C-alpha cells in the first residue's frame, strides 16, 4: 500500500503529538526527583523514603488540606497531630512521613510511623522525641479510617479540594486542571479501594487497634498474601527497633510470635507492607520495580539495618537510686535474665503459650500457610531473604530501653512495669494509652486522669485480644524486692 505524502505528514504530526503527550505524562506523573539529603541517618529514618511513594503515595497537597475540609473526621483539634503523631518543631511533616516528588509532590509513610515515640516529664514539658521507640501515641487505624471517610464524603471532589489547595499553592492553570480532573478523582478511587481492603478491620464490634498498636500479622496476611478474611484478631504493640544487633543470631526470632527469623526479613516485609512493594496489577509498575526500584530498595533496607542495628536504646532520663538498683540486679539475674538478658537461654527465642499464659489471639493470626504464601510473594519481587515461619509461641525479647516500651506485654495490656509485677487480678482492667507524660514511680506512661483520658485511647482488657493475663513472673516478690527490681530495670 502506498501512503500519500499528505498522509505521511499526518502520521508524523500524530507521532510527534503522542511523544509530546508521553513526555508530558511522564513529567507530570512519573518524573522522580530525589529527596533532599538528610543531615544524618536518624533524620533519614524519620523522614526518608522507603519507596512507598510510588504506589501508596498520596498527592501531598490533597493530604495537607483534608483535615481542613473534614475536621469532623479528625478525633480532636489539631489536624493530623490529633492522631497522636510525633511532630517535631519546625518540621513540615510528622515523623514517619516522607515527602517526594514523583511527577507531583507525594507523601507516604516510612518505618518511623510506628517506631518513633515521645515522652514528657510533665504536662508542661516539651515532647522528647526518641527515634526507633514504639509510636505509643499514634493512632494508625484512626488515620486509615480518616482517609476512608474523607474519600467517601461527597465533598471529596475535584472542585472542593482543588479550591482548598489553591489557598496554599499558586497552582498553574494546567496543574489545577490535573488536580481537579485527574489527581483528586484518582485519589478518591484509590482510597475507596483501600477501604475495601480494610473491610476486615471494620467489622461490627471488632476490636480497635487503638493508639500505639496495629494488627501486624493480619495486615501481612490480607495485603501481602491476599488470603481470605478469617476470624482472627491480633492487636499488638509497636515494638522498639533500636539496637537490633542484639536481635541477630542463629536460632533467634523476631516479631511477637517468632514469625520471622531475621532482622532483615522484618525490615523488608514491613517496608513492602507499608507500600514499597510494586503493584502486582500494574505491569508498568512491575517494570519500574524491576529496572529501577528493586536495587534501590534492597540498598535502602541494608542502610536501615545498619542504622537500626547500631542505634542505641535511650537512657532512662530520670534519677536512678544506685543503691536500690544494685539490690535489684541479683533479683533480675534470678527472675528475668534467662529469658530477657542478651544471650539468655530463651532470649529472642520461642516460649510456649502454656508457659507464658498471655493472651493468645495474636499467635492465632498467623499460619504456616500464610507464611508460605508471603515467602512466595516476596520471591516474586525477586527478593531473597530468610523465610517467615509459624511457631506456636510468644517471643521473649531483650529489655533494652524497656522504660520507653510501655505499656507492656505484646498487646500493651499492662500499663507499667510495676503493674506487670502484680498478679493479674491487681493489674488495671481499664486504662488510657497514648498520653506521653512519664510516670517514673511506676515506670511507664501516665494512664489515668483528665488529660490521659482526653488524649488517650481506652484500653479495655475484657475485649478480645486485649487480655492482661499471663507473665506473672515476679508477682510473688516482696514489695521492697519489686522496688529494687524496678529500679534496676530503669538502667537497661
Amino acid at each position, binding site marked *: 500500500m502506498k501512503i500519500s505524502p499528505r498522509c505521511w505528514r499526518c502520521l508524523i504530526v500524530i507521532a510527534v503529538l503522542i511523544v509530546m503527550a508521553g513526555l508530558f505524562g511522564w513529567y507530570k506523573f512519573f518524573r522522580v526527583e530525589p529527596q533532599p539529603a538528610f543531615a544524618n541517618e536518624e533524620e533519614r529514618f524519620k523522614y526518608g523514603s522507603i519507596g512507598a511513594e510510588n504506589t501508596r503515595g498520596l498527592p501531598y*497537597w490533597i493530604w*495537607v488540606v483534608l*483535615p*481542613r*475540609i473534614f*475536621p*469532623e473526621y*479528625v478525633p*480532636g*483539634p*489539631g*489536624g*493530623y*497531630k*490529633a492522631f497522636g*503523631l510525633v*511532630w517535631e*518543631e*519546625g*518540621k*513540615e*511533616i*510528622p515523623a514517619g512521613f516522607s515527602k517526594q516528588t514523583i511527577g507531583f509532590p507525594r507523601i507516604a509513610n516510612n518505618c518511623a510511623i510506628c517506631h518513633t515515640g515521645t515522652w514528657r516529664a510533665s504536662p*508542661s514539658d*516539651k*515532647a522528647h522525641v526518641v527515634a526507633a521507640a514504639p509510636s505509643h501515641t499514634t493512632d494508625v487505624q484512626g488515620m486509615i479510617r480518616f482517609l476512608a471517610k474523607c474519600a467517601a464524603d461527597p465533598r471529596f471532589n475535584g472542585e472542593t479540594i482543588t479550591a482548598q489547595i*489553591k*489557598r*496554599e*499553592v*499558586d497552582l498553574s492553570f494546567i496543574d489545577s486542571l490535573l488536580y481537579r480532573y485527574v489527581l483528586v478523582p484518582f485519589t478518591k478511587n484509590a482510597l475507596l479501594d483501600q477501604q475495601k481492603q480494610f473491610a476486615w478491620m471494620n467489622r461490627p464490634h471488632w476490636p480497635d487497634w487503638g493508639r500505639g498498636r496495629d494488627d501486624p500479622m493480619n495486615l501481612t496476611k490480607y495485603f501481602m498474601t491476599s488470603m481470605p478474611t478469617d476470624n482472627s484478631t491480633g492487636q499488638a504493640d509497636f515494638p522498639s527497633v533500636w539496637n537490633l544487633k542484639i536481635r541477630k543470631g542463629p536460632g533467634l526470632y523476631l516479631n511477637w510470635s517468632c514469625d520471622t527469623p531475621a532482622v532483615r526479613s522484618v525490615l523488608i516485609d514491613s517496608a513492602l507492607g507499608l507500600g514499597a512493594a510494586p503493584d502486582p496489577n500494574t505491569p508498568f509498575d512491575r517494570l519500574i520495580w524491576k529496572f529501577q526500584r528493586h536495587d534501590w530498595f534492597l540498598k535502602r533496607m541494608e542502610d536501615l539495618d545498619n542504622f537500626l542495628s547500631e542505634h542505641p536504646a535511650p537512657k532512662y532520663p530520670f534519677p536512678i537510686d544506685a543503691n536500690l538498683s544494685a539490690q535489684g540486679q541479683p533479683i533480675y539475674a534470678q527472675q528475668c535474665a534467662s529469658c530477657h538478658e542478651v544471650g539468655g537461654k530463651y532470649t529472642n527465642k520461642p516460649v510456649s503459650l502454656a508457659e507464658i499464659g498471655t493472651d493468645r489471639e495474636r499467635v492465632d493470626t498467623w499460619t504456616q500457610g500464610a507464611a508460605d504464601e508471603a515467602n512466595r510473594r516476596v520471591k516474586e519481587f525477586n527478593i531473597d531473604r530468610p523465610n517467615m515461619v509459624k511457631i506456636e509461641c510468644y517471643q521473649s525479647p531483650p529489655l533494652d530501653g524497656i522504660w520507653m516500651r510501655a505499656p507492656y506485654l505484646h498487646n500493651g495490656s499492662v500499663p507499667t512495669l510495676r503493674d506487670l509485677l502484680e498478679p493479674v487480678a491487681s493489674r488495671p482492667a481499664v486504662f488510657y494509652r497514648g498520653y506521653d507524660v512519664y510516670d517514673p514511680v511506676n515506670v511507664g506512661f501516665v494512664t489515668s486522669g483528665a488529660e490521659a483520658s*482526653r488524649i488517650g485511647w481506652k484500653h479495655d482488657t475484657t475485649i478480645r485480644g486485649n487480655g492482661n493475663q499471663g507473665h506473672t513472673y515476679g508477682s510473688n516478690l516482696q514489695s521492697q524486692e519489686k522496688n529494687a527490681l524496678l529500679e534496676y530495670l530503669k538502667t537497661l
Partner: protein
Amino acid sequence: MSTDPASGPARTRCCRSCWYVAGPLLVLVVLWAYIRFTRDRPVAFANDEDHFKYGSTGGERDAGIPYWVWRALPELFPEFLPDGKKGYASLGFIFDPSRPTDKDLPVGVSKRNVQGVDRVFLNCAACHVGTVRDAPTSIPRIITGMPANTVDLQAFERFLFNCATSEKFTPERLSYEMKALGTTDDFINRALLRYVALSLAQQRLIFLRDRFKFMDREPDTGPGRVDTFNPPKVLLNFRMDLLPEREWVGNCDLPSIWNQGKRQGMWLHWDGNNNSVEERNRSAAYGTGAIPPTIDRPSVKRMERWIHDAKPPAYPYAIDKALAARGEPVYREYCASCHGRSGEDFSGEYVGQVTLIDKIGTDRHRLDSYTEELCANQNQLYAAYPDERFSHFRKTNGYANQPLDGIWLRAPYLHNGSVPNLRDLLEPTSKRPAVFYRGYDVYDARNVGFLTDVAEENGKKYFRFDTSLSGNGNQGHEGKAFGTELPADEKEALIEYLKTF
C-alpha cells in the same frame, strides 16, 4: 454540494467586509476584557511610612471588600455600630486628614483594584497605629507603630457579621445605598456586584461568622486587644468544639512594632513562640487576608523595611532630668537584664528570652491558647514556598521579655493589657485597679499611660476592663525582683527614667 454561482462571490465579499470590522472589534473587546479582569493594582504611596499605614499586603485579592460596599455598610446598618452617625470611627478606627488619597478610608485600611473592582481590607497598620491626645480638646497625634489603642477589631468583625446576616443585606438595598453615595463604579462593576459579588461576600462573611463563633465564649477583647492564636486554629479548621477550655481565651494586647531589626533573633510574640521577624510578619499577615498565593511580597517587604528601623517618638511631655537620672540605677538593677539597657540598647542577658510562667506569674490564658497542635500545623503554612515555610514556631512555657522602646505609648501593660499604667505596674496586684476603662487616648503623664477612669465622653462609651474575667487577670510581674517593693521615691524615679525610652 451546489452553490449559486451568482450570489456566491457577492456573499463572500459581504462576509469579508463584515470580518474586517468585526475581527478587530472582537480583538479589542477580548483585549479590554483581559486587561480589565486581570487588573491587580494597589494604591501606591511615595512615602514609606504612608505605605505602612495605607499600603496593601495583597489581602484584598482574596478577602477584599468592594470599596463601595465598605462605604455603604455603615449607611445601611448604623444600628450595628456603637454610634451609627460616626461610621467606622465609632469602632475606634483612625481617620487621618493627612492621608494622601482616599481620605474616607481609615488608617489600616488599604485599597487595591483587583479584576477591575476597587477593594479594601485591613493592613498591618490597623493594629499598629494609635493615637494620643494631650487633653480632651486636643487634636489626636497619630503615631505609626504604636499599638492601635482605640481600635476594636472584634467589634468590627461583629459589625460585618451582623450586616451579612441581616435581612437588609440584599443586592438591591446595597446597590441603592451605593448609588446614593455616588458610586463611581461603571455599569459592569455595578452589575457584577449586584448579581454575583454581593452574594459571594455574604456567603464568605457567614462562613467567617460561623468559624469565629469561638469568640462568643471568651470575654470581649475591647479596643487595642486581639485573640492572636485562636483565629489560625479556625482558619486551619480545628474542631473548636473539642478545644480544651484552657485554650479558649487568647486575648492579648496589640504590640508596638518599632525597631524590628534589633529584635531579629529574639523570641517574639507574647509567649515567645517564634524567633524570625519575617515569619512572624507572614503569620500576622493572615490577619490582613494575605494567604500564601496572594500575599504581595514586594509590598510586604517594603513594610518590613520600614518597621526594621522605625523609632518611637520621644516622650512629648516634661521629664524631670534629675529625677530620671536617679531612676537609671534602679532600672539597671531591677529591669535591665530582662528589658535591655535602654530604649535603644536592647542588650541584656534575658532580653528576648522566655521567663517561665511560674516565675513571671502573669495570667496564663494567652500562653495556654498556643499549643503544640497549632505549632505542628503551622509548619505546613507556606510549604509551597520553601524559603517562606513556617519553621520557627515553638511551644513555650512562659512569656517573653521585651525591650521597652516607646514604652510610654504601650499602655495598658502586661501581655493582656490588664494594668493601666506604669505606676500601677510597680504596685502589687492587690493595689492595681480591678476595673478600668480602655480605648480612651488622653494621656496621663503623671502615671505614664492613658487615662483609664473615663467611662464616657461626648456620647462615646469606653470599654470597661474587668480583671476578674477569664484571661484578664492583672496578677504577676510582681515581688521584690519586679520592683513592686521599691520605696516610693525610687518608684517615682524609675517611672521618670522610663519616660526617656
